[in-house]
């Protein structure tokens, strides 16, 4: 039947404009259901409906012509009959009889019903998992880190559990600094004493600061200590999707059994549970069950639990039962260390002055640092150049020009005035009351830190002040950051909003 589909696509390729063919017909994956009927799987409902409206009739006509006039039934479905990665054909063959007509393999994230291709977190028959690994490798031979996300472990009963931990994210590859040392220490504690008093471990902070890395590091450590530990990393979206599918398929008990049977559950970005009441309800029960059973939970979020809008109070309160810890944007030294570490991992020589230069220019988060480093590496490979400071300046000049454009003195003045709820005109005025002078000093210090303007230029931009005034402001704010928590917090917040 799939051979017939090949012939059909050849004909459609002649009939349709190439772009239509490539967009709508090419992504369809053909398979056969248990009744020998052709099943075409579209990646989503949108593509499926489009194909149904525009092409299905013609597809059936062609198939009928090719099949000697016999009518060929075609079923359109959503999902991947033969997932392009991790194809566990043995698992499908061993699966119990499917209800007829069976839909082709939507993704499930839990153990049952076993009608689908095993996906994230699913328990796979051993042989299937082995085969799926080999398929994955063959498909991804070009990918350097092929298969690193899909760690399978042997567990009781001869089935394999996939943790979806990224093996690159370990404690040894994590760069510890002032901004994340508490979170790092807490994660270490949890890794050595899972299910103990730091349960759940709730890590919160801005984007790209290493929350996910720490979470994976704990998971990897747990599995290295006990290769049979059932650890699962999921993004919150995945948990929600699984639950929705479980409800649709009447398989909520399997869903519960799977999630509650884990030794450690790591859920990333739980802020996306906000507003999803049914998922929260289910998560609440899963959470309680795991906690009662002494299984470790690690959660990450972009903010402190109490600040998550749209999340039930009982969940917020439970998140605080264990240890809640924040990560801050890395300071310069940590950024330099991160760059050097990443360069080492990528087998690339990055001189210290070059790392310092990139780190001093890109402050917002580690992802941007990594992006800049990748750009340098790609350009060095393309041009065959040695990585030096001048080369880096040339390679990143457009990126840095954009950053400079983004952080201008004008912009800093505007953001600071908004932050302190004062008028921009007051900030630039001669007024010296504390409520105006302090924000002005903060704005001056930020201008010195974030722009390349000289002290006289900055003074001039602040109502024609002398450069010594700017110098005094910078020193004062530095001093206050050490002694005054409010100023420290304000400065940090402003720095973040100006560089993100």
């Amino acid at each position: 039947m799939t051979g017939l589909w090949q012939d059909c696509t050849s004909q459609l390729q002649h009939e349709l404009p190439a772009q239509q063919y490539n967009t709508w017909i090419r992504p369809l994956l053909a398979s056969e259901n248990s009744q020998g009927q052709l099943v075409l799987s579209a990646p989503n409902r949108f593509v499926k409906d489009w194909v149904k409206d525009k092409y299905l009739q013609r597809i059936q006509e062609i198939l009928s012509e090719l099949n000697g006039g016999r009518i060929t039934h075609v079923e359109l479905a959503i999902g991947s009959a033969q997932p392009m990665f991790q194809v566990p054909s043995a698992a499908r063959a061993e699966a119990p009889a499917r209800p007829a007509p069976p839909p082709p393999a939507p993704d499930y994230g839990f153990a049952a019903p076993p009608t689908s291709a095993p996906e994230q977190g699913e328990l796979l028959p051993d042989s299937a998992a082995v085969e799926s690994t080999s398929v994955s490798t063959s498909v991804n031979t070009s990918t350097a880190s092929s298969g690193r996300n899909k760690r399978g472990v042997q567990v009781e009963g001869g089935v394999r559990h996939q943790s979806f931990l990224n093996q690159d994210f370990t404690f040894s590859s994590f760069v510890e600094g002032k901004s994340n040392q508490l979170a790092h220490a807490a994660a270490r504690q949890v890794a050595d004493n899972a299910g103990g008093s730091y349960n759940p471990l709730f890590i919160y902070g801005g984007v790209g600061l290493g929350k996910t890395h720490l979470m994976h590091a704990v998971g990897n450590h747990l599995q290295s200590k006990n290769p049979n530990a059932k650890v699962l990393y999921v993004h919150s979206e995945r948990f929600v999707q699984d639950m929705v599918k479980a409800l649709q398929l009447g398989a909520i008990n399997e869903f519960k059994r799977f999630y509650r049977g884990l030794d450690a559950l790591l859920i990333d970005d739980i802020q996306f549970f906000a507003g999803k009441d049914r998922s929260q309800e289910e998560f609440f029960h899963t959470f309680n069950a795991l906690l009662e059973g002494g299984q470790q939970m690690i959660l990450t979020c972009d903010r402190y639990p109490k600040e998550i809008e749209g999340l039930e109070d009982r969940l917020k309160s439970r998140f605080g039962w264990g240890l809640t810890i924040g990560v801050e944007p890395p300071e310069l030294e940590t950024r330099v260390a991160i760059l050097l570490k990443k360069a080492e991992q990528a087998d690339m020589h990055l001189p210290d002055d070059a790392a310092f230069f990139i780190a001093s220019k890109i402050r917002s988060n580690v992802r941007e640092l990594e992006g800049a480093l990748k750009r340098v590496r790609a350009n060095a490979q393309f041009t065959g150049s040695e990585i030096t400071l001048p080369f880096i300046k040339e390679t990143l000049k457009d990126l840095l020009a954009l950053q400079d454009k983004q952080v201008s003195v004008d912009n800093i003045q505007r953001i600071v005035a908004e932050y302190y709820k004062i008028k921009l005109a007051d900030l630039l005025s001669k007024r010296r009351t504390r409520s105006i002078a302090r924000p002005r000093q903060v704005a001056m210090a930020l201008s010195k830190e974030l722009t390349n303007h000289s002290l006289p230029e900055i003074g001039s931009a602040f109502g024609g002040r002398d450069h010594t005034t700017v110098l005094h402001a910078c020193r004062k704010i530095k001093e206050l950051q050490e002694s005054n928590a409010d100023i420290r917090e304000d400065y940090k917040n402003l720095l973040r909003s100006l560089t993100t």
Partner: protein
Amino acid sequence: MAVMSSLAPAQLPLSIGIRDDARFANFHCGPNEHIVHALQQQWTTHGEPYLYVWGKSGVGCSHLLQAACHYAEGLGHHSIYLPLDELQHYGVETLDGMEQIPLVALDRIDAVAGHADWEQALFHLFNRIRDRQGHLLIAAQAAPNHIGVTLPDLCSRLSWGVVYGMTELDDVEKAKALQLRARRRGLDMTDEVARYVLTRGPREMQALFDLLERLDVASLSAQRKLTIPFVKSSMGW
């Protein structure tokens, strides 16, 4: 060849899909050679699976994304090209399940920036593609931090791969691009004619290519070579 009426392109309200002629071979790199190289390297061991290409309208971002899809298909990898400016009315569901395709090319992501539902859907798609170690190409008219994305989680991910800004071609390079495109169509365009077209014609590259298409049709029907007098009379200049 039996062609059903419902297959007529006129009935499709969208132009979603990749142009058959949008190939790397049909693209004049000029100062953007390193970007084409990076796109071709995507499938090699040292290639970066996620690239973000930005540039003003007409600089060739869409062409490159489509060429990358053709290139992937040539290597046996399925791909899908999704121009989000055209797809935004169909809702975020359009992105569901796309991670199953080894290469997803999202064009004009800036068109949906600022829409909370799209931003969240793109964020989740990004994570799913990354989990599967899939390949992702994104094009927009500005750099990641300048397209108005409000979801920080998405914004940081957009800067995670290699970000390239396309450099606009100068007149000399535009003439070369025009000549390359003409040659690929079997037309001989001399330097003089190319310069003439550039002096009198539109400045934007896509508009120049459209003009070339009109000249191609005119030259074919008149059985004339592309000369300055012919171009002048055909275009009414």
